[in-house]
């Protein structure tokens, strides 16, 4: 008996060693053919979305994570000429006076089937009407469930603009506007105009479930459907089998939330991420054969926004002094590694409304000092600059930029404290206007120039908390409104020129740079992910089989 017990012991020990041996040996082979691994893509994103419904948030993290993955819009943008092309709407028609817009919908669009909702019918006019009615109808329970907070739609005054939405038949709807608006169609094609399922909303109501589930447990028509979300860690999407546009190639789409840019780079180098947002060390990535660097000119601008409601920046002279003191060229080379252009207007050069002769503010310490003396602050003062801790499309390193500005301002006697928070806290505090000045920026949601003025600087946006300068100017707002009221491009261009002149005089914010948006991926990934507008899209993406 004793001998037998001993041999059992030896066998056990052997088994353990074999297990370790197998594990070690198998670790050497890099290539694995596990289908669960080859049929899925891991995207390393820079932050957590604040919601799963882009109607409720304008931040690019939320847009990237949700808009083109989970949902569709009535129209999309052509990636080359930025024209509107059909999506959920087969076609549309606008009357001559610009007040009636009719959409003819597709009939073959199915909603996601998940463990929390099973659709019984395809998308129809009711869903489209519901999606927009929840924004304009204050008695709608889904308006109340989010306390009416639709920042993008509030900033374009959507509820004042739309008189009603009429159902013509099962697959035709008509918007009736109170006045014509040139950017209306473009706004609907922006990433916020997503179509939700009315049937899902009705189910939530009927079953007495928490109404915010409409936005936190999303149901859409997009190429992927929601499976799991762990705050600050991951989002798991799976393929929507009945996607109307085509058969999606990948089974799983993972968002690995990695705020640190060095950790994203490491994960790309070790192939733990297939695609990463906002890469650093671009030369290194471009030089490697197993990795691909992609860039797209995106409509964005980085700026320093002054809180115009509190001293010292309630005084335009101080804003102008700071504007003169900052050396933008040095910032372009040190922060962007020359992957950007010096910005002299809020509007990027690629926009048709950009006007060249806005009076630029040159870099001059003498002028800055004189202006400070005029403002009665010749002895200098202390100033807080807030800078975000994560990379943005318009600003790869806000902290570094803040340090450069700190050095620039020290030369004219202003002492700068740089303040930073974790990103979502940062945005919350900004919305409350707790800052003196902040380094932030704007990425366009769609090509209409209005998108650069109304959401970040209008009086309406001051109320919604997306106006970082806390600035409201009647004349400026009037110009924006006039421009929206007409479809004549020459008139609009003239009005936007005047608007830009007001900005150049008032300087509620100082434009710094227009950046390109970059992304890096492993060579096995095929398909376009970056788009010029409205966030990334994974619907066309495939992973090549490994040899």
């Amino acid at each position, binding site marked *: 008996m004793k001998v037998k017990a001993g041999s059992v012991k030896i066998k056990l020990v052997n088994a353990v060693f074999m297990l370790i041996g197998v594990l070690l040996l198998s670790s050497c082979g890099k290539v694995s053919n596990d289908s669960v691994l080859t049929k899925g893509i891991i995207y390393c994103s820079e932050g957590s979305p604040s919601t799963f419904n882009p109607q409720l948030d304008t931040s690019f993290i939320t847009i990237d994570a949700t808009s083109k993955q989970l949902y569709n819009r009535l129209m999309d943008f052509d990636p080359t000429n930025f024209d509107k092309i059909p999506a959920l709407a087969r076609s549309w028609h606008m009357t001559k006076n610009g007040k009636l817009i009719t959409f003819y919908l597709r009939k073959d669009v199915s909603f996601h089937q998940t463990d929390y909702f099973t659709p019984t019918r395809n998308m129809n006019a009711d869903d489209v009407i519901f999606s927009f009615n929840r924004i304009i109808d204050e008695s709608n329970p889904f308006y109340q469930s989010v306390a009416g907070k639709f920042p993008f739609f509030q900033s374009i005054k959507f509820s004042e603009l739309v008189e009603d939405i009429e159902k013509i038949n099962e697959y035709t709807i008509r918007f009736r506007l109170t006045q014509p608006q040139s950017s209306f169609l473009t706004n609907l094609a922006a990433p916020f105009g997503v179509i939700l399922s009315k049937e899902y909303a009705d189910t939530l109501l009927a079953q007495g479930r928490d109404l915010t589930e409409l936005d936190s447990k999303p149901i859409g028509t997009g190429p992927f459907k929601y499976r799991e979300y762990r705050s600050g860690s991951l989002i798991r999407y799976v393929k929507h089998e009945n996607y109307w546009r085509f058969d999606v190639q990948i089974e799983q789409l993972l968002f690995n939330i990695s705020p640190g840019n060095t950790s994203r780079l490491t994960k790309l180098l070790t192939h733990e991420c297939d695609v990463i947002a906002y890469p650093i060390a671009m030369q290194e990535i471009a030089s490697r054969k197993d990795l691909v660097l992609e860039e797209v000119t995106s409509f964005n601008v980085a700026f320093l926004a002054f809180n115009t409601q509190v001293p010292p920046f309630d005084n335009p002279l101080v804003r102008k002094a700071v504007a003169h003191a900052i050396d933008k060229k040095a910032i372009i080379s040190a922060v962007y590694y020359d992957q950007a252009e010096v910005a002299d207007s809020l509007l990027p050069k690629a926009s048709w409304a950009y006007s060249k002769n806005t009076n630029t503010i040159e870099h001059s310490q003498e002028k800055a000092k004189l202006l400070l003396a005029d403002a009665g602050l010749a002895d200098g003062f202390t100033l807080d600059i807030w800078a975000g801790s994560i990379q943005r499309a318009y600003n790869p390193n806000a902290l570094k930029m803040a340090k450069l500005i700190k050095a620039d301002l020290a030369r004219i006697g202003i002492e700068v404290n740089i303040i930073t*928070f974790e990103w*979502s*806290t940062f945005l919350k505090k900004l919305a409350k206007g707790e800052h003196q000045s902040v380094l932030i920026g704007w990425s366009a949601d769609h090509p209409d120039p209005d998108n650069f003025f109304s959401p970040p600087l209008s009086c309406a946006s001051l109320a919604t908390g997306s106006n970082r300068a806390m600035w409201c100017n009647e004349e400026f707002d009037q110009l924006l409104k006039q421009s929206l009221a007409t479809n004549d491009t020459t008139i609009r261009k003239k009005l936007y020129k005047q608007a830009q002149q007001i900005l150049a005089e008032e300087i509620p914010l100082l434009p710094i740079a227009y950046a390109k948006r970059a992304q890096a991926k492993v060579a096995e990934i095929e398909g376009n992910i970056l788009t010029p507008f409205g966030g990334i899209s994974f619907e066309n993406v495939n992973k090549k089989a490994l040899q």
Partner: protein
Amino acid sequence: MLNFTIRRLNLLFFTLLMLSIVSFSLSYFFPGDALVNLSGEINADQQRTEQLVELYNMDKSVFHQYTAYIGQIFSGNFGISMSSQVPISDELHTFLPATIELCLAALFIALIFGVPLGFIAAIFHNKPLDKIILTFAMVGYSIPVFWFALILILLFSITLSWFPSSGQLNLLFEIEQVTGFKFIDILLSDSEYQAQALKDAFMHIVLPAIAVATAPMTIFIRLARTSMLDVLESNYIKAAKAKGLSQAHIIYHHGIRNSLVGIVRLIGLHFANLVTVAMIAEVIFNWQGAGSWLIESIFARDYTAIQGGLIALASFTFFINILADFLYAALNPLERHKKHGA
């Protein structure tokens, strides 16, 4: 033994009391409203605020508030996280097991390498091998974990591609979270990729566990060495030698057993150290544990999470210490009769 138990429980009670007082007072020391800091409910409406005031006795004296706070802690309510609005207890349940898993793996590595190396050094006392092992221990002890972790990633992940650099499991494996311990969850799941997932989880834990294990391992080397030297110099070993027992026999039958007793207790003492090191390693290896969660909470100014995390991690470490003391007392009868606790 009764005396010993009472003394330990006394210590446990007063430490936890102090800890809870510190944690409670933090809600007043942190900026903002004490009630919001305690509950974490930043978006509470009028009605909910009234409920919370009643729950935490905020309208009564500080002493009443403290007792209400303790009551809530004992009923498992740590408030909700200010940034994610998820109950802290849920977050702890998610993240603490990951930390424990990492600490256990590291402790295992530290013990199976550290203790034998220490014994070998003692056996070859003052010989070259002893010097080499001691040098190794000194170097290992002096290397900061954040640097060592980065070197491990650079070498084994980026250059050699042997091990992944971050996380606990390839995210494409969909494993339902039950216990929070990745290995147990994988074994519990009925995933068709169970074996692959298990292997993947193993590959993920290797580097962080080595990084965390290094510092404690060097401590164990030196402890084991000292402990073995003490034993080898004691009279009963001399007596055994005089009886003509072989050196190998003496070490195997008397040396190892007796010197292990001294080490058990020190494992408990060094567990606190291990948790601290693990917190740093978690951030570097993107390990979704309580350490990286706590550090993220500090960045997010999530005061409720900081409070809850502090009290949970501190009590956890302290319980381990007490547990090790009991284990030691059970193994070593001499300890039970000591007049003064260590």
